[in-house]
C-alpha cells in the first residue's frame, strides 16, 4: 500500500512539471503587458518601464525565466503578486478555505441527493420516477450556471427574502479566522446567530455549484447500478431471500460505487478549479474570483502559482479516489 502511494507520488513529478510549463506559457500567450496594466491610465516613463522589466526579469530569454520559476517552485517559492506584493502562497491559503468550504458543501449536497436518486431510478427503471429524474438531470446538466444562479437569487433572496445575496457572513458578526471555514469559525466564536448566518450564506452557492455534479452523479449511479443489477451475484443475493433494500443498497451499490466514486472525485477536482462563475456571482471570496481578477491584471505569479496549486489539489483528490477503489472492491486492491 505504502509502496503504491509512493509510486503514484513519483508519477506526479512529470505531471507537475507539465502543469508548471503550461501555466507559465498560458499567461504569456495572452495579449497584454503586465507592466502597462499595472501602470493603468496614469502611464509611465520609459525609464520606469525599463526598470520594471528588469526587476521582473522580462528582459531574460523565456527559457531562463522558466528555469528561474521552476527552481523557485521546487524550493516552495511561488513568487510574489505584482499587485499586492504578498507571496502567492499566502494569498492562496488565505482564500482557499472559502473555496474548499463551498466545494465540500456542494459535493456533499450533490452526493446526498444524486446517489440515492440514481439508485432508486435504476431499481425502478422505466417507471415514472426514473423518467422524471433522468429528464431533470439532463436539464440540470445543460442549464447555464449564471442563469440558474440568478433565478435562485430572484426567488429566494428577492421574492422570499430567505437567503442573503452575497458574501460568506453577515456584517453583524465579526470573529477571527481560526480554520478559515466559516461554519466552524462561527461556531467557535460562540456568537449567537453567526452559524445560522454562515449556513444561510452557503445555501444558494452550494445549490448552484452542486447542480451539475448532482446531475452527473445521479446519471452515473443509475447506469452503474443498472449494469450491476444484472450480475449473477445479485441473483445469488436475492436467492438468499434478502430484502430488496439490502440487495440493492448493499450488494449492488457497493459494486456500483467504483464508477460513482470516480465521478465524485472528478467533480471535486472541477469544483475546486471551476467555482469561478459561482464565486463571481455570489461575491464569494475564494480562489476562483482571485484567479479571474489576476488574469485580468496579468498578475503572472498569481496565475501561475494559483493554477499550479489547483492542479496539485486535483492530483491529491485523484490519488485519494484511487486509494478508495481498493477499499470498496478488494479485487482491485493494489498489492
Amino acid at each position, binding site marked *: 500500500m505504502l509502496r503504491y502511494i509512493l509510486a503514484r507520488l513519483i508519477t506526479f513529478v512529470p505531471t507537475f512539471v507539465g502543469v508548471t510549463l503550461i501555466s507559465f506559457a498560458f499567461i504569456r500567450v495572452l495579449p497584454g503587458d503586465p507592466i502597462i496594466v499595472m501602470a493603468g491610465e496614469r502611464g509611465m516613463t520609459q525609464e520606469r518601464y525599463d526598470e520594471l522589466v528588469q526587476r521582473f526579469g522580462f528582459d531574460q530569454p523565456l527559457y531562463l525565466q522558466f528555469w528561474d520559476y521552476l527552481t523557485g517552485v521546487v524550493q516552495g517559492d511561488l513568487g510574489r503578486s505584482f499587485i499586492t506584493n504578498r507571496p502567492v502562497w499566502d494569498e492562496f491559503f488565505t482564500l482557499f478555505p472559502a473555496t474548499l468550504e463551498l466545494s465540500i458543501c456542494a459535493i456533499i449536497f450533490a452526493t446526498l441527493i444524486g446517489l440515492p436518486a440514481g439508485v432508486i431510478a435504476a431499481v425502478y427503471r422505466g417507471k415514472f420516477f426514473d423518467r422524471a429524474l433522468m429528464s431533470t438531470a439532463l436539464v440540470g446538466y445543460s442549464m447555464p450556471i449564471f442563469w440558474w444562479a440568478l433565478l435562485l437569487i430572484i426567488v429566494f433572496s428577492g421574492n422570499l427574502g430567505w437567503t442573503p445575496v452575497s458574501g460568506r457572513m453577515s456584517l453583524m458578526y465579526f470573529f477571527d479566522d481560526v480554520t478559515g471555514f466559516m461554519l466552524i469559525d462561527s461556531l467557535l466564536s460562540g456568537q449567537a446567530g453567526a452559524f445560522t448566518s454562515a449556513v444561510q450564506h452557503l445555501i444558494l452557492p452550494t445549490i448552484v455549484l452542486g447542480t451539475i455534479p448532482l446531475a452527473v452523479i445521479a446519471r452515473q449511479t443509475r447506469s452503474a447500478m443498472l449494469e450491476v443489477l444484472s450480475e449473477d451475484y445479485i441473483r*445469488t443475493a436475492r436467492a438468499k431471500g434478502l430484502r430488496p433494500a439490502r440487495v440493492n443498497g448493499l450488494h449492488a451499490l457497493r459494486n456500483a460505487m467504483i464508477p460513482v466514486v470516480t465521478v465524485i472525485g472528478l467533480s471535486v477536482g472541477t469544483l475546486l478549479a471551476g467555482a469561478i462563475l459561482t464565486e463571481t456571482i455570489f461575491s464569494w471570496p475564494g480562489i476562483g474570483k482571485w484567479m479571474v481578477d489576476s488574469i485580468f491584471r496579468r498578475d503572472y505569479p498569481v496565475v501561475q502559482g494559483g493554477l499550479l496549486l489547483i492542479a496539485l489539489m486535483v492530483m491529491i483528490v485523484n490519488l485519494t479516489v484511487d486509494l478508495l477503489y481498493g477499499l470498496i472492491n478488494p479485487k482491485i486492491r493494489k498489492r
Partner: protein
Amino acid sequence: MALLTIRNLTVEFATASGAFRAVDSVDVDIDRGEILAIVGESGSGKSVSMLATMGLLPWTATITAERMEFDGTDLRSLSGPARRRLIGKDIAMIFQEPMSSLNPCFTVGFQIREALKQHLDLDKKGRQARAVELFEMVGIPDPERRLKAFPHQLSGGMNQRVMIAMAIACKPRLLIADEPTTALDVTIQAQILDLLTDLQKETGMALILITHDMGVVAETAERVAVQYAGQKVEDQPVTDLFARPHHPYTAALLAALPERATERRLPTIPGVVPGQHDKPVGCLFSPRCKFADERCRQVPPPVQPPAIGFARCHYPLNVPAEVETA
C-alpha cells in the same frame, strides 16, 4: 408425497423482437428426498423454469402456471415477504457460474453468515460456528482462514463449494443445482457431484440436478426429465429411461454417449434447437428427427401416458405391446 408440483408452466420474455417463449407448458414433480435430473441441450429452458420457481427471473419475464405448489404453498400468489421467507431457506439454488455468482466486494464468510442471519435464530458466535461447520461439510480445508477470503482469492471449485455451503446453510428441503459442475475441471466435477449426492443422503433433502451430461444423470439421478426447446419431452425413472427411451430426442441423446457408440465416430444430432423465429408449427423436434413425417411437422404431438414416459411424441419408441398410445 409431492414436495414440488408444477403444472403447465410457461415463461415468456419480452424481447425487442417480440415475445419469446423460453418455457412451454412444462410439468415438474418431485417428492421429498428424491433426486430428479433435468437434461437437455443449451437453451432448452432448464434454468429459466427453475428460476421461475424461485421467483428470480428479471421483470421482462411473464410467468403463467396452472399449479405451482411447494409443500402445499401456492408459489404463484406468494407475497414478497412470504417468498423471501421461503427461498434461501426451504428452497435453495446453486448457479451455473461459481466465479460470478459470489459478490466480489465481500468475504465468503460474510456472504454465508448473511444467509444464516436471514433465516436462522443464531447469535454472532453461533453463525460463525455454523459457517465453519458448513465449510467442513463441503470439504473446504482450513475453514476459519477461508471464511476470511474474498471470492477472487479462491479457485472455481472452492467457490462452488462455498455456493453449495451457502445453499445448504439453512437445511433446505429442496436444493436446485443448476449445472453445478459445467464451469469446473473434470477432476473437480466428480468431487462436487459426490458431495451433492452425499449431502442429499445425509440431509434427506430433495435434489433437482440440471445438467446436459447423460453420464452424470446415470450416476446420480433417480428420475429424469428431458427438456427440449422449452418443452418437457419425456419423464421416466433413470433405469427405464436408459433401457427404453420413448422420445426420439432422448434416444438420440443416449446414442451420443461415448460408451454407447457402435461406430468409431460419435453419432450427433444434426441441426440446432429452434430459436425465437424458426419454431416449427408441429413437433418442435421434427426438423431434427429421423422418424418425423408430415403429421409431425404439422400437428403438435400429444403427451403420452405415464407408461410411455409422458413422451411428447406422435410415434413414441419402445412402446410395450399392451400399452395404448395417445
